[in-house]
Every structure is written in C-alpha cells, then in structure tokens.
C-alpha cells in the first residue's frame, strides 16, 4: 500500500477556496504555538488583535488605511504573476511612487496652479513606478535576466535613494533634525474620506474592478493569461510575448507607484521614514492567496491589513512585538504553496502496486 498523487481531470474548485482558508488557520495555529512558548495566552492575543482591527469604526478605518497600499501593490503584483513574471519589486516601485509624488508636491507648487498638483503628482508616481518595473521587465524580455533578483535588488536601491533624499537634500530645514521633507502644500493632499482613509482607497477599488474586467473580458487579459500558462502556445497564436511582458510590468509598477503616492500624499503629507513598510512583500502573499483574482484581492488585502494593524495594537496594549503580524503573514504563504498541489492533484492510496493495470 502506498500513497500517490494523481492528476485531477480538472482543477478542484474546493481546493481553490479551501487551501487559502486552511493556510490561514495553520498560520494562526503556528502563531499560537509561538505565543504559548513565549508565555502569552494566544486566545487573548488574537482577541486583542481582532478587537483592535474590527472592534470599532475608528479601528476599522485604520485597517482600511493599511489596506489601501496593500490593494494597489497586490493588484500590481497580480498582473505580473499572471504571466509568471515574479515581480518581487513592488516595494521599490512603491517607494519610487512616493518619491515622485513628493517631488511634484514639494517643488512644482510655486510654478503651477494648485489644482494641477494632485493629478500631476499621481501621474508622476505612476511613471516612476512604471520605470522601476519596466527596467527588469525589459532585461527579462530582451536579455533573459532572472527577474526575481533584479526586482529585489532594485528595492534596496529605491529605499536607499529615498533615505538619502529625506536625510539629505530634501530634509526640512525647520524639521528640528527630524528625518523628513517639509510638509506638502495642502493642494497636493489626497482628500480624506473618513478618519485617515483617503481617496486612494476609492481609486484602488476602481482599479480592482477594471482589472477584473480586463483579465476576464479583454484580448489583453487573454494574451497575458496564455503567456503565463503556456509560452509555446502563446507563440503559435502569434502573441508578442516580449512586448506583453514590458507593457504588463509598466502597469504593474504604475499601480505600486500609486500605493507610494497614497502614503505620501494621503497619509504622511511629506516624504519621511516609514514609507517602506514591507507592503510590497505582503502584496505577494495577498495576490497568491487570492489566486490572482482582483476581486478576491480586495478582501484578502483587508484581512492582511488587519494582521498588521492587529500587530501594532498588541504592541501598544500587551507589549508584544508588532512583528507577530509579519510572522503570521510569512507563515500563510508556506502551507498555501504546499497546498497548491491539491488543486491539480489528489491523494490516492494504492493498495496493490500493479500500476499498469490501474492505468489501463
């Protein structure tokens, strides 16, 4: 008797839904063991996290504040991942978006009418993010350079560059030594909706619906899907793979750029430390959990945001490290990847080793 994996006739829709849910539970279980080992009651901790994120209107708006950059970056990552282009660089693209938006807000306000500042800042954020994703895309498409490494390396470059700006040339002379730029003129702020939730959330939601439509109902969606699933087939169909990769990554980077613009124009109102919070990495988990479905991404982004806000809450309330949230996130991806096999295969116990007969 032995256990074998057997390919399913079609993918299991149960597994598509169940694997992310089970993975989430596994990560909670692992987190509970970790908390128990460190002498804390996991149930109390999880309850504090839940109350801290969904317990009141105020805490829920804070969850939405964190969900906004996660939504943008996850959508961006999903576009790239559909083509099996592993864009690990959403973090750097986000940082560049924040820097470009800050550039417009800080230095263009004197020479331009106020109402043009915000749209221009958003546009430049898109352009900056797109360039930062476009470079590794072009390297991959035309020179076949491994994209995981280039996008990763560019994260470090972007973060260091931004740091140089707010510690150096862009530092506010009246900031009393605080590392950050001067405050942007109010004309460049993204309008707030409720609490600290800003217009960026609405823009991100619009993009989620647009992308869902584009993925499922347009020729572009079809072409990018085929490239991801089977490059040989894509070539036979006459699809231009190189151009598609570059275009998709420009859009991917632009969305992450908007995430950065939202953080600077909508929340901090200056370029300062804390722009790079690891959202670009969390985005990878979110889009994977959502099976790259833009509508599912909305919900998973809110869930992941609640882990981050919950982590902050238990740090304030219970003195536990906020990185509990990050540990839980990191732990979700692993069972999910392992469980991915079950969508295409099923476990079967074979009693007799006569495989030839079973196949016939």
């Amino acid at each position: 008797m032995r256990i074998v994996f057997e390919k399913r006739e079609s993918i299991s829709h149960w597994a598509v839904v169940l694997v992310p849910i089970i993975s989430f539970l596994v990560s909670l279980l692992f987190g509970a063991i970790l908390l128990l080992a460190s002498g804390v009651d996991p149930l109390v901790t999880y309850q504090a996290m839940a109350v801290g994120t969904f317990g009141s209107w105020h805490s829920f708006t804070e969850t939405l504040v964190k969900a906004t950059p996660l939504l943008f970056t996850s959508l961006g990552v999903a576009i790239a991942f559909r083509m099996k282009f592993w864009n690990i660089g959403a973090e750097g693209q986000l940082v560049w978006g924040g820097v470009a938006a800050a550039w417009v807000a800080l230095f263009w306000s004197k020479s331009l009418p106020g109402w043009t500042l915000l749209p221009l800042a958003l546009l430049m954020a898109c352009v900056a993010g797109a360039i930062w994703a476009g470079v590794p895309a072009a390297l991959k498409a035309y020179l076949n350079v491994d994209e995981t490494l280039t996008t990763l390396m560019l994260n470090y470059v972007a973060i260091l560059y931004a740091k140089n700006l707010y510690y150096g040339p862009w530092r506010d002379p009246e900031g009393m030594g605080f590392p950050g730029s001067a405050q942007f003129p109010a004309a460049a702020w993204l309008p707030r909706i409720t609490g600290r939730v800003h217009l960026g959330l609405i823009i991100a939601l619009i993009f989620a619906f647009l992308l869902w439509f584009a993925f499922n109902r347009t020729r572009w969606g079809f072409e990018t899907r085929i490239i991801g699933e089977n490059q040989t087939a894509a070539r036979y169909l006459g699809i231009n793979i190189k151009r598609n990769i570059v275009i998709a990554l420009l859009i991917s980077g632009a969305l992450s750029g908007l995430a950065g613009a939202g953080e600077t124009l909508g929340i901090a109102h200056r370029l300062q430390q804390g722009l790079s919070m690891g959202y670009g990495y969390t985005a990878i988990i979110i889009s994977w959990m959502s099976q790259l479905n833009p509508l599912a991404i909305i919900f998973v982004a809110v869930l992941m945001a609640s882990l981050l806000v919950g982590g902050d809450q238990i740090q304030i309330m219970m003195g536990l490290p906020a990185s509990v949230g990050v540990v839980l996130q990191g732990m979700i991806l692993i069972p999910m990847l392992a469980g991915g096999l079950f969508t295409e295969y099923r476990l079967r116990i074979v009693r007799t080793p006569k495989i030839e007969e079973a196949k016939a």
Partner: protein
Amino acid sequence: MIHQLLSLSTIVGILATAVRLTTPFLLAALGEMFAQRSGIYNLGVEGVMMMGAFGGFWVALVTGSAWLGILAAMGIGALMGLLMAFISVTMQAEQGISGIGLYMFGWGLAGFLFRLTVGYITSIDGFKPIAIPLLSDIPVLGTVLFDHNWMVYFALLMVPITWVILFKTTWGLKVRAVGVTPEAADTLGVSVARVRYTCVIIGSVMAGLAGAFLTLGHTNMYADNITAGRGFIAVALVYFGRWNPWGILGGAFLFSFVDALQLWIQVLGLNIPYEFAVMTPYVLTILALALVAGRIWEPAALGRPFDREGG
C-alpha cells in the same frame, strides 16, 4: 579624497576587510550552488541567513559559547532547508515564490524572536582572529590573507572542497545529472527527490553558517536586517560564477571588495553620501546579471519540479 584611499595602510585595510567579507557570500553561494545544481532554485537564502544570524547570536549570548551558536545556526539552517525541500520537491510548488515565503518567514520570525528574547543592541564574544604563524608575518599579504577568524579560512577552504565533491565524486555526478536530466537519472536508479532534499538542506545549513558569521565573526551583535540582502546577492553570485566554486569565489571577492570599499568610504568620512556607497553592491548585482545573461549555461532542470508519474 583619492590620496586618502591610496595610502598603503588603507589599501591593506580594504583588502583585509574584503577577504573577511567574502565569507558570508562564499558560504551562502557555495551552498546555493548545490541546491541549484540539483535543480532547486532556493531564493529563501536571505531568510535562512537572518535566522542563522539571530539563532547563533542568541545561543552565544545565553550560553556564552560562540561554538554552540554555530551549532544552533546549522540546526536552524537544516530545518529551514527541510521545509524548503518539502515545499519545492515533494509538493512541487513554484520555487521562486516558495523562496520568498521562506524569506518572509525567516525575516518575520527573526525580528519577532529578537524583540521577545533580547530586544536591545548588545554585543557578545565572537570569534577572535587567528594569525597563522609565519604566513601572517609576510608584509601586506600576511595581514590581508592570514589574520582572520576560523570562519574566513573555513569558507575559503570550502571552495576546493565543494569543487572536488561536485566534480570528482560519484555523488557530485548524481547531483549534476539530477539538475540536467532528472528523468534519465531516475531511470538509472538515482532517487531525484533524495538528491534534491540533500542538496537543499546542505545549502541551507551553509546559509545558516553565513548568517552566523555576521553575528559571531563580524559585528558581534544582532540588529534588524543585519543580512542586508547578502543572501539574495549570494543567489545572484551562483549565476555570476556559472555554478562553479571557482567562479563563485571570483564573484564573491568582487562583491566583498565593493562592500569593503563602501565601508571604508564611510570610515574615512569621504564626501560621498553613505546611501550611495551602500547602494553599489545592489547596482553591481543587476549589472553583473545583465552582463552574463544569455551567454551562460545553466542546469537544464533548474526550477522544474520532477514528477515520477510524468504528470
């Protein structure tokens, strides 16, 4: 500015630092070379290094023995390697993303455990340099090459050792076969899964050691993000070194030289913003990858899961 960098004592200092900083790159990259030679692309090296750096540091802090720290880092590396092998070999998951999962897991866990157990910057007794008698008395060369702690010598020795293992032993032949044509190796009775598990675990143990070097043999303390992307650079070095220990040695030295140079630029207080100095290894990685792209041979089955049923 230039004359500051060109004085003999500075040059010797930079070269000696470069030789020392080759260690984490070499250990991690030589380990990753085994994984990739067997067909598994383990991008999680950075996360393993972080856990190795923290685990080694913490055990050394608690027990007062850096050697126990080394053992802990190797054990952590083995466990994380087992996890990566399970996901990528048994469960046949997408390897690039699995590595990122392993990285995030290591990153989050190391940060969490550090805050929970220590929480502040404190230093430990790390490994002391061992001057090799006679050789370390040679002017210039002696200081550059023969006055380091044991981990530096160990990492350099691993270059010929891994070369012999990979190219002169039956097991090395199996590893290379599994990475190129797993189907053929399987037909000849080689267990593809077993070879891949072994290689990923070896690689991960070495990544754990590379991380432990940073805390036990370099800074003698732990701080968040202490690995600073060195694990990712090590993965790039495997490409750059064309899956060959000697090539990896060359690449590792080039990178550690740049690393040492940027450290010395900061030490000497030269008029270059420190962020730009720190940035150079990352930019260099991208340039190096672009430069060798398209003109390199790579293990044909790299990144491709092997399924015996042929599914």
